[in-house]
């Protein structure tokens, strides 16, 4: 396999991947950071699955473990201080965490690829961008300089860079923010990966460019039948793009559901709080409904449900016992003791119940 890449082959790296089970499956993942202040539990039993052609949005505020999840799947977590305390990450049935580092490295960029938040700092300032895209073909497919450059130009055109032939020799700082992110995307999809992880791909961009970049990602995903994991804290971004949403809080999935379902009938108070905190055009002039309080410190988790200190509906049960992520209806799962009531919209705060 030297010149023509075969986009249809599932695995271009080594190792045979039997297509059993989902494309990517994360099972009971635990990640810790050993710091001077103690052990920070960044991820506490994370579960999700991703199928080919599906977009999973992982939603959560800062420190909820979104980016650590991405880094752990990619295998670029800094260890130490990071430490994978347990769980499995299965790519086409094979546990990534049990693989040898070299075998894993060959999957990166080829089978599983990633886009970063800040494209300017993610591109090497001393190499032309075309060169950096071409490098993907040269490193992974041992392609020669000239054909690799040709492929880079094609990719630049595909991601919507005008005058790609002239700009292939330009440097990252000569491009605008949106263009840089397109180049980053071109690098990430160069080898037709099955799984693409986008870690806040549009956070550093302004709103109009955000929409363009998201549309591009969506198009590329449909074309290549990629599984896309979209990590974001922006509910607005995910609404048009995602198929499934997993809401993370304190290193756990709090609620996971189909995108329409979750917006219409949230099954967890945290999700409800997030949705209510969105600025609305029909409520102009009113104060935003922020969720009171702060996320818990990862070194000092509250007992019971991690959201209980901030939850208006919290009861003694919540404060003492961690609810499991269980289904409400179909694929809609929630980690709340009162998931049923929440989902039906009947849940009352303890004060309301007394009154």
């Amino acid at each position, binding site marked *: 396999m030297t010149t023509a890449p075969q986009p249809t082959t599932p695995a271009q790296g080594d190792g045979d991947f039997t297509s059993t089970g989902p494309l990517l499956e994360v099972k009971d993942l635990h990640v810790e950071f050993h710091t001077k202040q103690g052990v920070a539990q960044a991820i506490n039993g994370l579960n999700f699955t991703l199928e080919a052609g599906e977009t999973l949005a992982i939603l959560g505020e800062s420190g909820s473990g979104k980016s650590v999840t991405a880094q752990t799947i990619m295998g670029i977590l800094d260890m130490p201080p990071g430490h994978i305390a347990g769980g499995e990450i299965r790519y086409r049935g094979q546990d990534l965490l049990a693989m040898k580092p070299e075998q894993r490295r060959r999957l990166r960029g080829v089978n599983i690829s990633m886009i970063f938040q800040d494209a300017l700092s993610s591109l090497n300032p001393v190499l032309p961008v075309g060169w950096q895209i071409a490098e993907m073909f040269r490193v*992974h497919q041992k392609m020669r300089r000239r054909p690799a450059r040709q492929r880079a130009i094609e990719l630049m055109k595909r991601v919507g860079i005008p005058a790609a032939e002239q700009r292939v020799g330009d440097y990252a700082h000569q491009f605008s923010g949106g263009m840089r992110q397109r180049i980053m995307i071109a690098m990430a999809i160069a080898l037709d990966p099955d799984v693409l992880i986008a870690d806040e791909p549009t956070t550093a961009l302004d709103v109009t460019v955000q929409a363009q970049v998201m549309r591009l990602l969506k198009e590329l995903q449909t074309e290549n039948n990629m599984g896309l994991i979209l990590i974001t804290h922006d509910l607005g971004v995910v609404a048009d793009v995602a198929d499934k949403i997993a809401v993370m809080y304190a290193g756990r999935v709090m609620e996971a559901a189909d995108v329409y379902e979750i917006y219409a009938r949230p099954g967890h108070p945290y999700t409800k709080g997030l949705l209510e905190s969105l600025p609305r055009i029909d409520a102009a002039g009113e104060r935003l409904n922020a969720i009171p309080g702060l996320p818990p410190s990862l070194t000092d988790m509250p007992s019971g449900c991690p959201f209980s200190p901030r939850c208006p509906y919290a009861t003694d049960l919540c404060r003492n016992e961690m609810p499991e992520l269980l289904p409400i209806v179909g694929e809609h799962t929630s980690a709340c003791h009162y998931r049923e009531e929440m989902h039906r919209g009947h849940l009352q705060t303890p004060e309301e119940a007394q009154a």
Partner: protein
Amino acid sequence: MTELARSRSAAPAGGPAPSPTTQGRPQEDASLWMDTWRSLRKNPWFLVSAVLLLVLITVALFPQLFATHDPRECFLGRSRQEPSAEHWFGTDIQGCDYYTRVIYGAANSMAVGVIVTGSILVLGSLLGLMAAYFGGWVDAVLMRLTDLIFAIPYMLGALVFLAVQENRNVWDVAFILIVFTWPTMARLMRGSVLAVINNDYVTAARALGAGPLTIMRRHIIPNSLGPVVGYAAVYTGVIIGAEATLTFLGVGLQLPAISWGLQLNDAQSYLQQMPHLLTFPLIFVALTVFAFTTMGEALRDALDPKSKKR
């Protein structure tokens, strides 16, 4: 071609955003090195030192262009003459034309400077890179080794080791200086790599499947070499001074080699009667050191992205 390339390569997704940087701008090379070159060209100190270095290097490589006499053609009859129209720098004790001797002395001094700096640049960068990239015990061992060598002032070290050696040529002097000076470069490179290694583009390269060698070659080295290169130029001047000093002290190069250090050594006994024997080689040593140091400073300024006025 592939699915990717075939599919609507003409119709970009999402509509291309306007890119103000492309249109109407002459294709200006914007690589780090071209940028450095542009900022260097505007620096008068760089121009002065570059011209000076060019002349001095030509002198070292082709002394016959500058001096018509044979430096070893000496007549005792014209010993110790003052500078004159015929002998610009006068003559030395052996009656050799002093101008010719000084011109021919450039080669050895420069050779030591270039050999030592070149070697420590390669060796020090490599070890510094390894220390920073691998960290852990590799870093610990290498850094304790540099500490060990740092504990001995390089002049003292060179003095001791060269004194026990009976015959010393350019390579011997260079070797000892390399042994005692590489830690400076290694430390500098290590710091420079540590500053680069946590950049997002290194993480991104890792995420896209680049191996350690690719990451070092493509991402870390080009981005961390700047300060090291600048310092290496400064260091060449320092080494040339060190060679002259060592030779002057009698532990560097030996006769019949021709070098500025040896000339200074000869001149010290006749300082009062014939100050010109000291003055001329000293001027050349000073000029060379000045040229390299100034060049190094200019390079360091230009390569430092923080001081860059884009």
